[in-house]
């Protein structure tokens, strides 16, 4: 039945390709990607629950959207810092604004449909400052942030696979050192909702995001005398663009905001990426004979639970796995997944260094651009803003270092 369905899908895709779609679909890649997705979903629904099944689908949607909209934080920040083009940053601000609108009112209720929910909160302290700075530096050397690394790995970028491996290693080391970093001065968790009501929290954050958007518009207009829009018309049909890519950034922003809200509904917390990297590293270290359960971090409530359970019981891991599969299928549909490898030794060194810095930084900063910045700000936590500022500063220095590694 499954094989029959797959042949039917391939036939359908061949017909669509002949008649509608301009880009050349990589059919073997598409077939493998869809097979992996279907088998994974069947495995989850039979061995786990509908919640696990839905989280993999949400992850798939995230990967598909990130790849097709080329929605990267790293490249967008670099484009603004070097070229003063701010459309990428404005699309991120738009996604955060939209997520705020949905997430803050639900967090205020503390439950959805009777299930408890929790926001992405972190302390305002030295740990966040150092961690986000290191993350920003690392993302420019590694070539992608948390979500960026995953969707480019799924999209067939072999160099990013090196970044991911060392991202995992850096996260594991971060879990070893985080308890010490948390002994350094901190103001604790500060959330806007403690001081104001829901409407005020939404409006004040919209004003702050709007102010940053205006800064990007100012510099872009100054350089080019016009601004690049986050929504552009395409000559191809909507279905063609939806399936084969080159989405307007606007579409990407809407998709990521809604899927972040969907994650909150299903998992009980907003979208997060890097917790899973530390967990995967800890699982691999355990296989190699390292007893990480003795490390203080892995004695904390959720880390202990996650370490003792299957990876598939961790909501962050599930969305990450779905994200990689979604990006793989998107890249196959766009016909961009194949390509010969050429990676220079200096570029490999940058990927290794960038991966370790991002992994270590993400643990210290309680997440990456997604878990700390996107979901942190959308939860009304001030650590998200602090993360944004210091990661941007780290990115600035990371961009300065890129030519030393032969990167543009």
């Amino acid at each position, binding site marked *: 039945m499954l094989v029959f369905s797959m042949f039917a899908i391939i036939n359908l895709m061949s017909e669509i390709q002949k008649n509608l779609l301009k880009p050349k679909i990589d059919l073997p890649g598409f077939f493998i990607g869809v097979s992996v997705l279907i088998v994974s979903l069947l495995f989850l629904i039979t061995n786990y629950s509908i919640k696990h099944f839905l989280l993999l689908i949400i992850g798939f949607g995230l990967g598909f959207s990130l790849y097709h909209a080329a929605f990267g934080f790293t490249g967008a920040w670099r484009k603004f810092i070097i070229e003063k083009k701010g459309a990428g940053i404005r699309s991120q601000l738009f996604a955060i604004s939209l997520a705020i609108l949905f997430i803050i009112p639900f967090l205020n209720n503390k439950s959805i449909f009777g299930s408890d929910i929790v926001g992405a909160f972190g302390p305002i302290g030295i740990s966040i400052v150092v961690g986000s700075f290191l993350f920003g530096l690392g993302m420019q050397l590694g070539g992608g942030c948390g979500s960026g690394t995953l969707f480019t790995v799924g999209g*067939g970028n072999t160099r990013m*696979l090196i970044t991911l491996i060392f991202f995992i290693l850096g996260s594991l080391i971060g879990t070893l050192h985080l308890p010490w970093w948390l002994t350094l001065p901190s103001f604790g968790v500060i959330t806007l909702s403690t001081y104001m009501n829901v409407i005020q929290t939404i409006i004040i954050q919209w004003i702050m995001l709007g102010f940053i958007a205006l800064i990007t518009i100012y510099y872009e207009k100054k350089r080019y005398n016009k601004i690049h829009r986050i929504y552009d018309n395409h000559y191809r049909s909507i279905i063609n663009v939806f399936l084969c890519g080159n989405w307007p950034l606007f579409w990407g922003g809407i998709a990521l905001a809604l899927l972040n809200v969907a994650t909150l509904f299903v998992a009980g917390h907003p979208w997060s990426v890097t917790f899973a990297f530390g967990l995967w590293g800890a699982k691999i270290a355990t296989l190699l004979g390292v007893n990480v359960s003795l490390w203080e971090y892995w004695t904390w409530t*959720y880390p202990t*639970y996650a370490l003792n359970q299957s990876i598939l019981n961790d909501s962050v891991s599930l969305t990450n796995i779905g994200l*990689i599969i979604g990006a*793989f299928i998107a890249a196959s549909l766009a016909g961009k997944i194949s*390509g*010969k490898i050429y990676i220079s030794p200096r570029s490999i060194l940058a990927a290794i260094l960038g991966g370790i810095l991002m992994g270590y930084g993400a643990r210290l900063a309680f997440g990456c651009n997604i878990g700390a910045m996107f*979901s942190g700000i959308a939860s009304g936590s001030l650590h998200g803003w602090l993360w944004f500022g210091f990661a941007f500063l780290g990115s600035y220095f990371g961009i300065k270092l890129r030519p030393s590694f032969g990167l543009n």
Partner: protein
Amino acid sequence: MMLKDQRNITIVFLLFFLLFVTLDHFYSKNIHQLKKEKHKTIGHELESSPCGM
């Protein structure tokens, strides 16, 4: 030769990764069952989150 193509490397990575996840699924299940027999309960608090603090 086959591994000079980025797509093939991605497929090999995906398959190895899913194999790792599947092995972890069965290994964790066995460990879980052993613990259940000993303690009759898992005993972890589930209210904490992987997101933020």
